[in-house]
């Protein structure tokens, strides 16, 4: 349930943001909501981490597929956020403001 909350809070932040950089951060928060949801789905009660170098193989472990998806997602997510920030910097360069409400018209 926390994942849903995170997602919604992040989206709310996006809509009410007054600053493009703050907006990029809110997108990241929304993304982390999905990570939490994925991990929560794969969790097993009293399970241990799915790495067997020092734990006997018969121990019950949590789901590795979900973790695999999430870990690449985290790294790619930060790259996308970097792209968003670069866009913000460029927008500021061209229009002099970081407020999404003032970036109304797309001047061609």
């Amino acid at each position, binding site marked *: 349930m*926390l994942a849903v*909350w*995170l997602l919604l*809070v*992040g989206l*709310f*932040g996006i809509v*009410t*943001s*007054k*600053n493009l*950089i*703050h907006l*990029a*951060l*809110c997108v*990241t*928060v929304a993304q*982390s*909501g999905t*990570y*939490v949801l994925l*991990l*929560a789905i794969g*969790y097993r009660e009293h*399970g*241990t*981490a*799915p*790495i067997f170098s020092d734990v006997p193989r018969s121990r019950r*472990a*949590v789901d590795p597929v979900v*973790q*695999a998806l*999430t*870990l690449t997602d*985290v*790294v790619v*997510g*930060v790259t996308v*956020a*970097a792209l968003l*920030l*670069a866009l*913000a*910097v460029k927008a*500021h*360069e061209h229009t*002099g403001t*970081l407020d999404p409400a003032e970036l109304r018209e797309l001047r061609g």
Partner: protein
Amino acid sequence: MIGVQIAALALVGGLALAVVLVHDVLRVAMLYGVYGLVLVVLFVVFQAPDVALSQLAVSTVAFPLIVVTALAKVKRRERRNR
């Protein structure tokens, strides 16, 4: 659910709200650093060390750098345009 997990989840939820509600960008950047660390704790408690490692590397090294440079660049330009 173990108590540690509930605590971690609650922390993450609270911080997310804080990140969204605070509008001063510099403070938000710092808050985000803390948020990233709390996420790492959450991932570890959920028995996902790989995910925790990648989130740690990302939110301690990569993210603060790009946010701070973006902020610095914007502030410099504003100061120059004045």
